[in-house]
């Protein structure tokens, strides 16, 4: 180690890079910025789920000549938001396919003047039949997208499923549902766009993926890449909600700015943000599993359907992750997964932390309880007997080649939770009183980085450059929105160079200044981008050594001097690192087979829940979150990721319900869409194990999404333990618990179990 810094930065809780600005209120978010001569923009949206636009009427009482008005006719390039299939218009022209679809844009110098003007535009439609549920879409009575309402389907076929049915002692069936979930970042979506004939379009905004917006604006505005510039401003939460949608709002602001010749700011209010932007895909998963009498999974079928909403957007990729995670952390000798994402006439569903995995893992972990009941094993034992072991393969036939011991992980989690002791005590205490307590387990995995061949296609590039003061600057398009990107990437560069943390800065993500290090999604930043930062940093050091200006072992002062000498001699000092696919990585996109992810993080979560039979509400009283994440780069930030994810997972399980009415979110207010407050959250206890990861920076695996996967099944499993009632849907609100507790419901559950299991299930 360098003489000047003896402490390792990796594994230490270096303070958040931009933390001082955030705690003092100095951090500048998009709505804190204002440009001279700036207009404010607003969006006129469809009021119906599906139909033909026949006429746009500008109502009385508005001085329309004061407004800049943009319709589809004003689009200089292609009228779509470039993403996968390019099926989503920027502004609906002839047809609308969901409520809240953008049709017309208005801009005015006074922000307060806009709501009245938006309300004064009325649109005549010729309505078309619409579909709102997975079942309606599957019936194909009305084809609303493509030839069959299906955006994308995948099929996994592993081993011999057919023979499993004949060898089975039990065949266990179940059907599981998850609802839409709103990201509810506290800062709503917002951008400012400015247009200049020479420089082209510049957009500043609250966003995750500057290069997604860049790509979308090139196609929309018909501009070459050097005439589109996208700058991320401080971003007040995202959680996937600012992965693809910012391209839409940036497109709108850009069109207004081009027409007005003045900068235009668009900031959604909360109601518009909730009603019009993406949510987590609702899902339905059916399991049919062949199980031996000792509780081993012999084979099974998993049918997974997700609701993609009105346009394809990112749905194929979300479905991909859901599909690959559908088998959980278990060994399946044979399995057939049929997965599809279908169209409905609701606003498109999109990226949200976990990206499909929370849906399919909820089904898997609820289904394990049903298997346990059928076979007569405990929740812990049935999992233990089916856990993936090193050397075995996942459902995509990826070999587990790290020494993960899930049985030990489970034992440790149960011990930390006081599981056995509490279970015994609750059986005793639940006999009387209106409080019923229970314990629930969820075991799961989460793949880090892009799926399959995705990282190879991304071909990320990262830079590190020397600065005049002798320090260095990290150049990435990876964005900070709370997770700790700035901090962790600076830690990695500092560690690689043997520099103090404060000598490393990170550039503001700006497509004119930073290379494309890929989108900030998929738990890939610390692991994949971090690895590239380390290698770019080492490249920079090699350059200095090669120039004869630095020795391999150096002090901080020697590094500063070398950096300054190099800059004096050559003007710039910059090292780039390009993503190289690790050798031996095989993935077949057709068969959906091979190495799905460079690394999996593993976890066992245990929830303790109390259900109050006077209010029928469930409360989480204790929560243990134990995970193996390769290497903890920054303990405070890593713990923060888990705590935040668990809170969103508890919200997904118990509170957060989107009420749909004709394809529209009826409760688009924080008053009616309930997320956990500090009074609702238990004292979550977070524990890590570290096995390392040869593909990740200093051994790290991705962790951002992992904690979203486990809480919902752990909580619902605990509710089943408390009440003896199997609920198979989230969110699980008091009214559903009430319905379930009524004796008729309980009786039908017994019947259903008998019908599903070939031999009667031995239930408690």
């Amino acid at each position, binding site marked *: 180690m360098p003489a000047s810094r003896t402490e390792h930065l990796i594994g230490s809780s270096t*303070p958040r890079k931009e933390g001082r600005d955030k*705690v*003092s*209120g100095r951090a500048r978010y998009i709505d804190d910025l204002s440009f001279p001569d700036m207009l404010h923009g607003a969006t006129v949206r469809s009021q119906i789920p599906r139909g033909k636009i026949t006429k746009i009427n500008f109502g009385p009482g508005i*001085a329309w000549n004061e407004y800049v008005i943009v319709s589809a006719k004003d689009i200089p390039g292609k009228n779509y938001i470039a993403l996968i299939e390019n099926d989503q218009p920027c502004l609906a022209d002839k047809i609308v396919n969901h409520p809240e679809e953008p049709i017309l844009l208005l801009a005015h110098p006074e922000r307060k003047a806009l709501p009245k003007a938006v309300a004064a535009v009325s649109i005549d439609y010729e309505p078309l039949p619409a579909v709102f549920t997975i079942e309606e879409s599957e019936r194909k009575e009305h084809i609303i997208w493509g030839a069959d309402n299906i955006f994308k389907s995948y099929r996994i076929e592993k081993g011999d499923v057919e023979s499993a049915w004949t060898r089975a002692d039990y065949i266990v069936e179940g059907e599981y549902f998850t609802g839409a979930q709103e990201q509810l970042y506290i800062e709503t979506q917002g951008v400012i766009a400015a247009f200049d004939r020479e420089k082209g379009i510049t957009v500043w905004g609250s966003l995750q993926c500057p290069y997604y917006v860049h790509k979308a604006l090139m196609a929309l505005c018909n501009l070459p890449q050097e005439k589109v510039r996208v700058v991320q401003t401080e971003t007040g939460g995202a959680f996937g909600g600012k992965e693809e949608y910012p391209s839409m709002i940036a497109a709108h602001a850009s069109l207004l700015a081009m027409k007005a010749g003045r900068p235009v700011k668009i900031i959604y209010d909360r109601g518009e943000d909730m009603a019009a932007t993406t949510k987590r895909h609702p899902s339905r998963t059916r399991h049919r599993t062949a199980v031996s009498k000792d509780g081993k999974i012999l084979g099974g079928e998993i049918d997974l359907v997700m609701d993609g909403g009105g346009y394809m957007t990112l749905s194929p990729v979300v479905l991909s992750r859901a599909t690959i995670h559908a088998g959980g952390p278990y060994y399946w000798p044979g399995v057939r997964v049929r997965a599809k994402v279908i169209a409905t006439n609701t606003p498109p569903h999109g990226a949200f932390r976990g990206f499909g995995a929370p849906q399919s893992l909820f089904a898997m972990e609820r289904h394990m309880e049903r298997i346990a009941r059928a076979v007569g094993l405990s929740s812990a034992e049935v999992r233990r007997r089916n856990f993936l072991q090193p050397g075995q393969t996942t459902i995509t036939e990826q070999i587990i080649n790290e020494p993960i011991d899930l049985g030990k992980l489970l034992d440790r989690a149960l011990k930390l939770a006081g599981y056995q002791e509490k279970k015994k005590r609750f059986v005793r205490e639940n006999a009387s009183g209106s409080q019923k307590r229970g314990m629930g387990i969820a075991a799961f995995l989460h793949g880090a980085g892009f799926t399959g061949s995705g990282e190879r296609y991304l071909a990320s590039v990262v830079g590190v450059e020397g600065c005049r003061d002798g320090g260095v600057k990290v150049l990435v398009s990876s964005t900070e929105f709370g997770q700790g990107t700035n901090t962790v990437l600076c830690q990695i560069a500092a560690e690689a160079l043997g520099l103090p943390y404060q000598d490393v800065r990170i550039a503001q993500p700006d497509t004119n200044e930073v290379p494309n290090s890929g989108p900030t999604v998929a738990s890939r930043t610390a692991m994949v981008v971090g690895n590239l930062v380390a290698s770019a940093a080492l490249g920079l050091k090699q350059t200095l050594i090669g120039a004869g200006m630095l020795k391999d072992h150096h002090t901080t002062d020697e590094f500063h001097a070398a950096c300054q000498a190099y800059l004096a001699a050559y003007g710039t000092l910059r090292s780039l690192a390009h993503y190289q696919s690790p050798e031996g990585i095989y993935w077949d996109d057709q068969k959906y087979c091979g190495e799905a992810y460079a690394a999996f993080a593993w976890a066992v979560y245990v929830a303790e829940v109390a259900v109050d039979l006077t209010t029928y509400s469930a409360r989480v009283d204790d929560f243990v979150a134990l995970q193996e994440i390769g290497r903890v780069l920054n303990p*405070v930030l890593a713990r923060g990721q888990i705590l*935040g994810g668990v*809170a969103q997972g508890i919200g997904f399980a118990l509170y957060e319900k989107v009420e749909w009415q004709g394809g529209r979110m009826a409760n688009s207010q924080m008053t009616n869409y309930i997320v956990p407050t*500090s009074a609702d959250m238990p004292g979550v206890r977070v524990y890590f194990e570290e096995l390392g990861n040869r593909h990740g920076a200093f051994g790290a695996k991705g962790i951002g999404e992992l904690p979203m996967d486990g809480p919902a099944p752990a909580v619902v499993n605990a509710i089943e333990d408390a009440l003896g009632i199997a609920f198979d849907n989230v969110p699980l609100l008091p009214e559903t618990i009430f319905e379930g507790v009524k004796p008729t419901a309980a009786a039908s559950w017994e019947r259903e179990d008998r019908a599903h299991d070939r031999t009667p299930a031995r239930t408690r």
Partner: protein
Amino acid sequence: MSTYRGAKREISFTVNGERRTVRAYPIERLLDVLRQQLSLTGTKEGCGEGECGACSVLIDNELVDSCLVPVAQVEGASVVTIEGLAADTRFHALRDTFLECGGAQCGICTPGMILAAIDLLNRKPIPTMEDIREGLSGNLCRCTGYVQILEAVAEAARRTVIR
């Protein structure tokens, strides 16, 4: 043009210890006047309906959602925003402990959260964990799951009491 009825008028109040006079519609939200006329952008808008607490300020030492307050209502009152806490020792402690404990992630709820913490410590200098949980329950955070915020406030209380 504007959707406000009535006429703009002069409204005077104290902001962060300084006497200020603004010209505004009486019904304009204090939040907008602070952010747009006085450039105090540390106060954030999260929901506009008094649910999230991102726009929390102190009015005559009471914690209020500034999105729900018509500016005419603060005539003659004393308003404190995050920018006005620079001299407050409890703020210094909170600023440090929020950084050390991981109390701020995306940071958008942080100014409101810190004002709620100041208000809590005004009322209860030695709060229990339950007091903190309750005291901050009007401020939503979507990043942290609250645990590290609660720890930061508890630690700040401990430090200021020792001092």
